């Protein structure tokens, strides 16, 4: 332990430490009946505080031990904590438990981001997952939430076990748990199994089956959280695994996994009737793009500074996905047919949703456009032509439902019953957050200079 402390400057762990403290504080604040008004603030405060601390963290130059604070970890922490803000602001529930769970999960993600060896990755993975199971289980609609949590748990447990198995194999091959390259069939197998653990968390085909169920039954804002913060952390996990050995068979397979996932998610989303499930599949499709990007990035040498395209994708997706799920929360829409003719009932809402959908679909000048462009570009640079074509087909197929929803809202006549029903006004607070998500999603595509900023951020 002394060695561990000596190796790591505690300042690098500031966000995690703050989060840990806040988890304790939340649980304490829940004890007496007094102070109820304050613990509600702890969630957003914690996320923002962690964000600010991550922003001020200086990358550590010294040789990493269990903890490694490099550009990637800081960058991803920023992303993760920022993505959690909407969820933190909109947390529902009568007690402090969800806040604590969220902060705990964030703590796990932070640890994952700054992990310096494989074991820490595993610990971070479990740390962020366990509270998430419980968060899902506490969903507003009880029965589906229970079912989804159960599925999430077993799938997650299996994924964790596979990761662990891979860890053991890799350890056996390389004699160390540190991030170091090693070769041989055992290392390859270990890498692949660790990769499966990460791919499961990202939601790649065929490890994705839990994902639609969870996103569908979770509260929309939670789904937004899972699809952004959690996914970002999972992507980093994948990147760490892939970066171990850029010339491994796993990295070679990764773009194909990404392409297939992107297409699979897009195709399955086409005929979904429940909006959250549709967005879940769309999230799978986006995850496929990211995986493609990760594969390309790793194949190109896994240079941290060049992960900016993945980073941009996740940043864009942060706004788009949170925004889309928040829209569902604000309007209370569940079924796809309910959006028909929405533009006539709720013009601002329809506009926001349309912008978000077009962004998700990757139409310029939205953020989603530049995100896709960068990923495709990365893949082309890595000569992953087959996967990029799959991803291109996925982009086309995905427009089938994104644009289909726009069509429903704007072009189709509402059913008589719906036309009569007044739009359900969401709370003002949520609407502001929704707009705050939609605005960057709409215009970030015009900011290619962000790539340079991200690149500098991610370079150690």
């Amino acid at each position, binding site marked *: 332990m002394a060695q561990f402390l000596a190796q790591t400057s505690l300042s690098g762990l500031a966000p995690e430490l703050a989060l840990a403290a806040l988890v304790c504080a939340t649980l304490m604040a829940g004890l007496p009946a007094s102070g109820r008004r304050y613990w509600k603030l702890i969630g957003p405060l914690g996320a923002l505080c962690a964000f600010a601390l991550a922003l001020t963290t200086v990358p550590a130059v010294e040789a990493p031990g269990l903890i490694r604070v490099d550009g990637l970890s800081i960058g991803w922490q920023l992303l993760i904590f920022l993505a959690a803000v909407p969820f933190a602001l909109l947390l529902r529930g009568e007690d402090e438990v969800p806040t604590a769970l969220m902060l705990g999960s964030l703590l796990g993600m932070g640890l994952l981001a700054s992990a310096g060896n494989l074991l820490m990755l595993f610990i971070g993975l479990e740390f962020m997952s366990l509270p998430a199971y419980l968060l899902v289980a506490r969903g507003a609609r009880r029965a589906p939430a229970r079912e989804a949590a*159960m*599925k999430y748990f*077993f*799938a997650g447990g*299996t*994924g964790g076990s*596979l990761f662990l198995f891979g860890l053991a194999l890799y350890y056996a091959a390389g004699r160390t748990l540190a991030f170091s390259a090693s070769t041989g*069939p055992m290392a*390859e*197998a270990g*890498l*692949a*199994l660790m*990769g*499966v653990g990460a791919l*499961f968390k990202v939601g790649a*085909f*065929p*490890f994705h*089956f*839990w994902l*639609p*169920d969870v996103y569908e039954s979770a509260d929309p804002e939670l789904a937004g959280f899972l699809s952004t913060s959690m996914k970002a952390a999972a992507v980093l996990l994948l990147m760490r695994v892939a970066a171990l050995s850029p010339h*491994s*068979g*796993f990295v070679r*397979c990764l773009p194909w*996994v990404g392409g297939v996932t992107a297409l*699979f998610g897009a*195709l*399955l*989303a*086409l*005929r*979904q009737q429940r909006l959250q499930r549709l967005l879940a599949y769309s999230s799978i499709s986006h995850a496929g793009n990211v995986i493609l990007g990760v594969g390309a990035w790793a194949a190109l040498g896994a240079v941290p500074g060049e992960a900016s395209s993945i980073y941009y994708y996740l940043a864009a997706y942060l706004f788009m996905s949170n925004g889309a799920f928040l829209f569902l929360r604000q309007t209370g829409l569940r079924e796809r047919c309910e959006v028909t003719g929405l533009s006539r009932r709720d013009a601002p809402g329809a506009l926001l949703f349309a912008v978000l959908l077009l962004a998700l679909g990757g139409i310029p000048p939205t953020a989603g456009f530049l995100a896709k462009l960068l990923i495709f570009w990365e893949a082309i640079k890595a000569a992953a032509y087959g996967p990029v074509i799959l991803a291109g087909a996925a982009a086309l*197929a995905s427009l*089938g439902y994104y644009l289909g929803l726009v069509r429903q809202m704007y072009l189709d006549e509402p059913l008589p019953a719906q036309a009569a029903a007044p739009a359900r006004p969401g709370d003002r607070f949520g609407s502001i957050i929704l707009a705050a998500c939609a605005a960057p999603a709409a215009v970030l595509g015009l900011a290619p200079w962000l790539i340079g900023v991200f690149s500098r951020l991610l370079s150690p």
Partner: protein
Amino acid sequence: MQRIPGGFAFLPWPVILLFAAPVAALLVSFFIVRPARPRWTHVPILASCAVIAACAIWILSLVLFQNWGLDLPLGGWMVAGDWLVSYGVRVDGLSASVLAMVSIVGGLIHVYASGYMAEDPGFARFFLAFHLFFLAMIGLLLSNSYIQLYLFWELVGFASYLLIGFWWQKKTARRAALQAILTNRLGDFGLFLAALILLAVFHNTRFALIFPAIVNGHYALVSLVGFLLFWAATAKSAQFPLYFWLPDAMEGPTPVSALMHAATMVTAGVFLLARSWPLISTVPVLPDLIAVVGAFTAIAAGIVACAKKDLKRILAYSTVSHLGIMVFGLGLGEVAPAVYHLITHGFFKAVLFLCAGNIAHGLHQPTADLDQVGGLRKKMPFTFVCFTVAALSLGGIWPFAGYFSKDAILDAALHRGPWAIVAGVLIGVTSALYIFRMLFLTFFGPSPRQKGGEHIHEAEPVMAVPVGFITLGTLLGGLLGHSFSTVIKSGWPVAQPIAALPEFSWSTFAVGMSAAAVGAGIAWVIAFVNPSFDWEWRTKYPALESALNSDFGWKPFVRLATAGVVALANAAGFFDHAVVDGAVEGAPRVAGAAGEQGRRLATGRINDYVWWMLAGAAVLLLAVMR
């Protein structure tokens, strides 16, 4: 022939006026006169016709007496760097002589039309289109390059479309107009492509530049160009196989038939061949082909004309036949006689049509039938005289104009060989036969089957006088042969001059006159010896009748070909809808169905989810360890 550098400044005023007058007249008529006084639309146009005629005669006399000529580029039309297609004017013997005929006949027919069309509600429209045609025809004759020629070639076709369909309420007129323009378009394919090829080979299509090059060199594609030009000419000049639009084009008003579909526009094809003769003569086989097609068309159309009853249709087939004669003559290598016949034919055929128009107008009908006329020589003496003069001219009777031109062609045929002799004689016989049959049945008799033109009256002066003047041309045209020989040689674009009209020869005279006499004799028999024969054979020999009615089976074939194109189009449309668009429409459905099937994978059971994960991990392991 003097050559002058390009530019409008060097353009002599008669040439400028030839274009400026009709353009100005059209603009004034369209924008000023027509809105205000539609009935006066023709006034500026007639003035323009006078100017044109004067200029044309002036130019002709310059060419005749001073051997004057002009080939002037007038600045770029289509330009791309050093690639240039320019406007230009070419005045030489060929264009000046044809232009003189066109402007005189055309001007007079304009006058005639102002009487003929006076009652028509579309009076203004008629004159505008008619004069537009006139402008285009002048441009066509004065073009100095193939591309500009194509411009006006298309414009005359366009005007012809408008005028054939002038009475658009009539279904037959609409069909005829469409048929005319589509057939012409089919022929234009040849001219368009020829211009493209010449342009690609020579970077230019000016006659004055390419013909000497062609004559002095060998170019592979020139043969193709020759055939394409002939193809274009068959459509415009109504030769087999594309002749069929012309008889139907008689749906237009009579002045249109007279000016465009007899005297001038349809001769554009012959003009094109004459213009291109330096090119065509270098192409092996082509002149013979031209001669054969011309002779065949002339004879076949002549035979069909013998069986027609509608006055204008007889004349239409006669026009086809006479165009065939010109083409025949050209094919024999005799440019001068062919062009000479073009000019004389312009005169006498115009008279014939206008006389037929007078009759129809007298009957208050758009056209007249042999059944309705007969014995008109007393009721319409002036028309009778004019018609007779023109008919004698057409029949090739000395000393009318037609004799001289036809005789020159016959002379060439007689020197060519047996088949040409036979063809020449047959042409002479059929021409005389149908025109004398028409003359006898219309103006003599009436035979028992004819109504004899009840209530018919002689044409008003405004219609009679122009006819008289043109008839004068028919009478005198033959005397100008010598001058014509001088004119046509002037400004010929290649060094090898063309032959003048042949000298008079007794043998040719004898053959020609006896052929005409035979034809006239048969017509005599039909009309006077057995007056009801013309009506009876149709019922007696239905097979013959249907053969002649269907132009020996060619018309049904054309209908079949048209139906084929339509069927092809429908097939393309169906293919596009069912296959190409079907694939497009089907793709989203397939994707959706795939998505629907894919949903079955997610059964909802935890065990299956984990199973999928393990299976995926196994597959990935396999792929990695490979």
